[in-house]
């Protein structure tokens, strides 16, 4: 175990960074210098200010302002809140869907298994972003226009979850197929314990390891997907300050040299996803003894 020392430290730092992000995002309301979407506090005099340490910077706006005088730091903090919220919710939903599908199809087998895995194959050939874009498009055209602002976030969550359930289902299914052959599962079958009880008491706890790893990696991907959708302008309604939308907004001013509108939201996003991915990597190495020796 001590061989892992180095990796483990990295993993712990990464988990710490993720935790810090969570705290910052959850406390955005109190930490952010400027409340979001309060037009009264905006002053066009403060528009397009560079970060505070630059000659034209203003101490009140640490990371500068955008073209309407909005504080970039506040935007980033509120954006993080939204991005992480969407990410966590989407992954939780995908995990739930995938676990249910994978456990049942792996344990019961038969046509249900064939059907679910066909669906998973089909899903895999359509990358997450396409699925999300498509679903979002469908939802937007089916739902009444007035519902868009309120339903935008749930639709994006659903779209990302639907695009991500497959890895969970696959891992859960493979794990279940292995567990099904284990003596303790078969002993429980001989005892005629009901199948759902066997699934919950023996199979589920023993397949959770890889699921946790997939969930961390999936979280990174979900956050990336949400940001990408917002960047493309299909997803979260533009009124909500997501990180992707901030970058999209800022990118228009990039040619004029206003790099801070793009770089800070982008860095915040990349840092978050990087921390999540490092943590996921560490968890995987910790779980897989074969990889363990490979890391040192």
């Amino acid at each position: 175990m001590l061989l892992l020392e180095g990796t483990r430290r990295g993993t712990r730092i990464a988990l710490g960074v993720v935790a810090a992000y969570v705290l910052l995002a959850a406390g955005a309301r109190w930490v952010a210098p400027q409340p979001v979407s309060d037009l009264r506090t905006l002053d066009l005099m403060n528009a397009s200010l560079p970060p505070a340490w630059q000659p034209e910077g203003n101490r009140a706006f640490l990371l500068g302002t955008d073209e309407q005088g909005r504080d970039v730091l506040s935007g980033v903090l509120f954006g993080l809140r939204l991005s992480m919220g969407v990410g966590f919710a989407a992954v939780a939903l995908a995990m739930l869907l995938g676990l249910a599908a994978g456990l049942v199809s792996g344990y019961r087998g038969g046509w249900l298994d064939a059907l679910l895995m066909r669906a998973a194959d089909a899903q895999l050939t359509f990358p997450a972003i396409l699925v999300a874009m498509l679903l979002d498009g469908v939802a937007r055209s089916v739902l009444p226009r007035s519902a868009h602002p309120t339903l935008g976030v749930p639709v994006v969550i659903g779209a990302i979850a639907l695009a991500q359930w497959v890895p969970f289902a696959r891992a859960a299914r493979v794990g279940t197929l292995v567990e099904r052959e284990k003596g303790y599962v078969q002993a429980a079958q001989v005892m005629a314990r009901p199948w759902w009880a066997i699934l919950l008491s023996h199979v589920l706890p023993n397949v959770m390891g890889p699921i946790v790893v997939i969930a961390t990696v999936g979280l990174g991907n979900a956050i990336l997907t949400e940001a990408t959708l917002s960047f493309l302008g299909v997803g979260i309604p533009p009124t909500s300050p997501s990180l992707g939308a901030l970058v999209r907004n800022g990118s228009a001013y990039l040619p004029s040299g206003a790099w801070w509108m793009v770089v800070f939201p982008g860095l915040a996003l990349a840092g978050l996803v990087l921390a999540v991915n490092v943590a996921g990597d560490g968890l995987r190495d910790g779980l897989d003894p074969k990889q363990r020796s490979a890391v040192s």
Partner: protein
Amino acid sequence: MLVVGLLAFAVSTKLGDPVNNMLGQSATSEEREAMRRELGLDRPFVVQYGRYLGRVTRGQLGVSYRLGIPVGELLAERLPASVELSGVAMLLTLLFGVPMGIYTALRRGSVVSKVILGGSLAGLSVPTFLIGLLLIFLFAVQLQWLPSSGRGQVVSVGPWTTGLLTASGLRSLLLPSITLALYSLALLLRLVRGELLDVLQSDHVRFARARGLPERSIHFRHGLRNALLPVITVAALQLGSLLAFSVVTETVFQWPGMGLLFLQAVQFVDVPVISSYLLLAAVAFVLINLVVDLSYRVLDPRVRSTLGGT
């Protein structure tokens, strides 16, 4: 294929009401009805599907609601740009991803490996659009070395327009293809590394060592060949995600490809374009899967004999 067709069609009928988008909110109900009839949207579902299939097999994909141009023409015009972008990105991915994966697996402790692995983790974490924007800012805005958008000068070779034959076309291709390749490159190199490490610990490699085969042969003949089997599947799926991410890249670089077309279609609910794009994507994926299956037949004797024999 029929299923995909049905899916594409379901999208094309259910995906909102193009009439609203075309005529705007102020149109009268008579105007809407006329429009509907003109587009054939008043027929029952099955009839519409039948007609749709018939049209598709004849190569008629409908007319774009937004641009009023037949979708077939639109796609033919945009296809080369996307194919060249994805193709070059795939090439970069394979050209760098596989060797880097091998290197990091064989030289596990070295500094270079650590840098590559760290870089690959970053590559997986930094969103594609951000990379694109930063590259534009650096090379196009600050240094002004490379163009920030478009395909540059293109040459027509028959129906195909290519940017690969002109200097400006190649210069324009550089940034977008690197942007597009980075994510799949990072993914592929980590996959190659993981698979190779697994194979190098397998029983048959242990036995190959035990009988004194040279390390070169163990790594490249026995190790790599076994490791590449699962990589093929993922690399092929990667081609799919390149297609998806090309939506992002094409947006950032205003690359006149299908991704950009698709994005605009989604935003405008331009149904014929969306469903045709999906259909095309589905055909591409089916083809890719076919190629994967065939390459397994060539590379894996076990698959070969289950198909050929019994």
